[in-house]
């Protein structure tokens, strides 16, 4: 049997990204093509080779156009690198750590025939937890040969989080990972320390500057052979600036008078880049200039899109010519797209704004339409936003089912980001739907409900009937967040879910395939409604189905949340082993994909807290509750917040702190909010009744329970408990008999009924019956090690168990009850584990490395190893796997 919670179907080695195969993204991961006029510079190639051949980090810094990319690319192509090269060209969208690291993983995967085990795509674009970086670092230990990772354009990565991750990787990676970072500014890494430790090779602006000899070679490649004085003058005036020298070559070729150009250039007072950019740009034919101006609103130019922006048809020819003749238009390899050198892009944009200020939004709008038709929905929406055309952007987002996918998280982050600046005044159903989806993704359920209600108004009035994509988005969002109070009733939810399924059938299959989030979200919405409605069996089935429907990378957060919720429903029913298993699976997904708490669901942690509590481990309960509290949905979701508060309250109660137990419940609404589903209300009433009983106030307990809409056995059992405590055993027995006829009896209910029956029998003076019922309760609870009902039962139970004449249940039947989680109850077999040792062992069970366990527990790796050794010794084992098996057999895990 595989260890708990690992090796799920669909979690295996299927790590291909949805976007692999997109030629534009392929281009980011391929080495840029060489210019025809490229000058190989041996001194720098050798230096780069030495750097990457020995040390972990080589830094290439210099201003725009100083030849960093050309140098790294020509080195990569030269065959000189010590091993395979993983190339990544960065742009401004890659600042989010999740995006950055997923590109890094993809780049490594393309460079290496076999990527070491254990590296997965990050789950969220926003951030990456330490576990992913730890895995990545550990994987580099196993590299058979040196691997070079080139990060080109690193200055585009804003913020500290990516450099911090890189620093971590440099500190922990194996010796065969070589990093080459190229950028305009020094990265935020402790360079002074790397220098002192001799771990850094630097090629800086002054090194990159062309020498007169190199300038002469460059000019010769442009078929220019000026005299030494011209070469020297140009080198001096440009200070060896590569892009400047290229522009000089272009200008000289055009004028046909190198000496004359050099004279006027070197005597000009104008800034070098200004002089050259203007010179070269103004030398272009008017039509080409116009094309460059108008396409400057784009990051990348496609010939057809350029035609749309210019209203002409010659873009392909013009761009091909510019790419051939110039240094500033570069084709994106393997595609029809091209890119303008950043030096020019900025000048062109400025000139466009200056000459035709009114044209800019119109160009963005045209680009948006073309990009949308070409299937580049995200870019299309960004241009629509630039154009201020929010209605169009929102409509595209809804019709392409992007809006509906926003609540699923990971890959829709960029869209969500774009729409954050959408003003609230944009009228119509689609903008309201997009706003609702964004609010839901931010866990603002009230805001989501408001926007959904607004969208509903618009849709009701719309003639003719809105398109299926619009209605589907509305149905799906409503299912996930009912505008009338968070969670729809199970009946309503079933109706909406069926309507959503019907709408999905009306949509082209291809569009649905593009959004694998939709079906899992639909099932998740339905499952939440069952859970909030207290229909646990159906909720469990629906959450399992939703988790199974998550087969794509885009859906891993849904899978994580659904497995957690499934575990929570199971833990509430007392099916503890299965709950623990599913909760650990849920957490494993989040760990493997490096999901940070901000993007995690608290459901899995709450389930583990409940399991720990029911098994009598108060310390673990508190720890798991704290972990759950770090996840945003623990407070935002009514079911989760209820479970979390109730568990805290019960924990206080076990310490005899009634006041604190009541205070723990105060964050919850006093009366159940309209439409919130009966489940949270019922759970709250049970908790209140429990507190009242602990204080000996039977009447208050009964009153608390009368407020519940009491189907299901749990309130009946609780009521019976109140009556038993008051000595009214007859009434209690009638209630128990009624409860035991209920169709939806869970394991915890069975145990409760049997235990109360035993208590009532004790009170009525029937010790035989009491012993029999207690034996049954022990047998029922044993497989799940459900200890809590026995711990809470009161002194009568201890008397019954410890009867001196041996008339109580056989000691073997109740031994598990007193076998503490720390193993103290199994004397002579093992020495008890300390709680830290147990924490470490739990980490081992989750297949974590010593490094990861250390990171999670805030311990040093050596301490973890010491604990592990001690665990092995105490359990008399020598291997990790045996330790877990043995600990399970001893009920320590």
């Amino acid at each position: 049997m595989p260890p708990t919670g690992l090796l799920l179907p669909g979690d295996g080695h299927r790590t291909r990204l949805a976007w692999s195969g997109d030629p534009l993204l392929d281009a980011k991961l391929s080495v840029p093509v060489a210019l025809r006029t490229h000058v190989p510079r041996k001194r720098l190639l050798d230096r780069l080779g030495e750097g990457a051949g020995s040390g972990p980090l080589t830094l290439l810094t210099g201003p725009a156009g100083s030849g960093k990319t050309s140098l790294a690319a020509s080195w990569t192509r030269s065959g000189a690198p010590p091993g395979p090269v993983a190339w990544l060209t960065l742009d401004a969208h890659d600042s989010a750590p999740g995006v950055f690291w997923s590109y890094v993983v993809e780049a490594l995967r393309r460079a290496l025939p076999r990527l070491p085990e254990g590296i997965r795509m990050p789950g969220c674009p926003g951030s990456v937890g330490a576990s992913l970086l730890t895995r990545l670092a550990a994987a580099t230990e196993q590299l058979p040969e040196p691997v070079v990772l080139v990060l080109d354009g690193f200055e585009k990565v804003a913020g500290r989080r990516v450099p911090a991750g890189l620093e971590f990787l440099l500190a922990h990676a194996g010796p065969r990972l070589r990093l080459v970072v190229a950028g305009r500014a020094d990265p935020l890494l402790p360079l002074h320390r790397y220098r002192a430790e001799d771990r850094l090779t630097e090629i800086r602006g002054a090194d990159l500057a062309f020498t007169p000899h190199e300038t002469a070679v460059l000019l010769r490649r442009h078929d220019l052979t000026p005299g030494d004085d011209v070469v020297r003058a140009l080198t001096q005036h440009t200070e060896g600036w590569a892009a400047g020298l290229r522009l000089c070559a272009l200008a000289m070729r055009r004028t046909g008078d190198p000496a004359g150009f050099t004279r006027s250039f070197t005597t000009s007072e104008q800034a070098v880049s200004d002089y050259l950019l203007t010179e070269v740009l103004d030398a272009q034919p008017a039509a080409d200039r116009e094309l460059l101006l108008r396409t400057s609103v784009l990051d990348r130019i496609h010939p057809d899109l350029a035609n749309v922006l210019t209203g002409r048809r010659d873009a392909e020819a013009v761009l091909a010519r510019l790419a051939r003749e110039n240094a500033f238009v570069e084709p994106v390899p393997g595609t029809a797209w091209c890119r303008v050198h950043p030096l020019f892009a900025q000048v062109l944009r400025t000139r466009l704004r200056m000459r035709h200020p009114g044209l800019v939004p119109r160009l963005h709008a045209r680009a948006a339409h073309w990009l949308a038709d070409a299937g580049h929905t995200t870019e299309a929406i960004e241009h629509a936003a630039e154009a201020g055309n929010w209605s169009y952007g929102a409509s595209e987002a809804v019709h392409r089912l992007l809006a509906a996918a926003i609540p699923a998280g990971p890959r829709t982050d960029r869209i969500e980001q774009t729409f954050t600046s959408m003003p609230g005044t944009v009228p119509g159903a689609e903008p309201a739907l997009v706003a609702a989806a964004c609010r839901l993704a931010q866990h603002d359920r009230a805001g989501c409900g408001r926007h959904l209600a607004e969208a509903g108004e618009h849709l009701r009035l719309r003639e003719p009937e809105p398109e299926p994509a619009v209605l589907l988005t509305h149905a799906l969002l409503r299912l996930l967040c009912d505008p009338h109070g968070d969670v729809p009733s199970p009946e309503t939810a079933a109706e909406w879910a069926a309507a959503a399924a019907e709408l999905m059938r009306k949509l082209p299959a291809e569009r649905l395939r593009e959004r694998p989030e939709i079906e899992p979200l639909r099932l998740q919405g339905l499952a939440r409604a069952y859970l909030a409605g207290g229909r646990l069996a159906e909720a469990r089935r629906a959450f399992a189905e939703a988790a199974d429907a998550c087969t794509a990378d885009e859906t891993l957060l849904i899978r994580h949340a659904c497995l957690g919720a499934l575990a929570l429903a199971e833990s509430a029913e007392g099916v503890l082993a299965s709950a623990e298993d599913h909760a650990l699976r849920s957490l494993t997904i989040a760990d493997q994909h490096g999901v940070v708490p901000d993007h995690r669901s608290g459901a899995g942690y709450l389930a583990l807290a409940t399991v720990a509590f029911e098994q009598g481990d108060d310390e673990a309960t508190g720890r798991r509750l704290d972990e759950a509290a770090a996840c945003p949905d623990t407070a935002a979701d009514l079911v989760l917040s209820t479970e979390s508060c109730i568990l805290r309250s019960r924990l206080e109660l076990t310490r005899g702190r009634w006041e604190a137990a009541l205070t723990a419940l105060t964050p919850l609404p006093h009366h159940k909010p309209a439409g919130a589903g009966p489940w949270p209300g019922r759970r709250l009433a049970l908790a209140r009744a429990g507190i009242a009983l602990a204080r000996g106030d039977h009447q208050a307990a009964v009153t608390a329970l009368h407020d519940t809409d009491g189907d299901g056995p749990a309130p009946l059992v609780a009521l019976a408990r109140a009556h038993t405590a008051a000595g009214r055993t007859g009434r209690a027995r009638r209630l128990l008999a009624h409860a035991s006829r209920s169709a939806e009896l869970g394991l915890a209910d069975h145990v409760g009924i049997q235990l109360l029956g035993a208590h009532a029998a004790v009170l009525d003076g029937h010790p035989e019956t009491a012993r029999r019922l207690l034996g049954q309760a022990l047998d029922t609870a044993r497989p799940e090690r459900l200890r809590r009902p026995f711990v809470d039962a009161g002194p009568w139970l201890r008397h019954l168990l410890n009867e001196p004449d041996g008339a109580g249940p056989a000691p073997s039947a109740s031994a598990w009850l007193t076998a503490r989680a720390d193993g103290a109850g199994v004397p002579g077999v093992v020495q008890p584990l300390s709680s830290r040792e147990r924490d470490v062992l739990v980490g081992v069970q989750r297949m974590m490395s010593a490094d990861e366990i250390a990171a999670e527990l805030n311990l040093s790796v050596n301490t973890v190893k010491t604990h592990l050794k001690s665990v092995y010794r105490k359990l008399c084992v020598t291997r990790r796997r045996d330790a877990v098996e043995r600990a399970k057999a001893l009920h320590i895990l």
Partner: protein
Amino acid sequence: MRYEFRVTGSVSRLLEEAFPELRTEPAPRQTLFFGTVMDEAHLYGLLARFQDLGLRVEEMRRLPE
């Protein structure tokens, strides 16, 4: 806060327009850009913009209010 940037060489109107929030003044072999800078993010943004355009900042200082 007000800042002054001294950039090498004279600068054409086109490149001046890339800094609509700053005023310019020619100086011997230099161009002065000056004006109100909103905050530090704006300051670094301006420096990046100079770099984008291949302009070299020789000197930068905060002006008295």
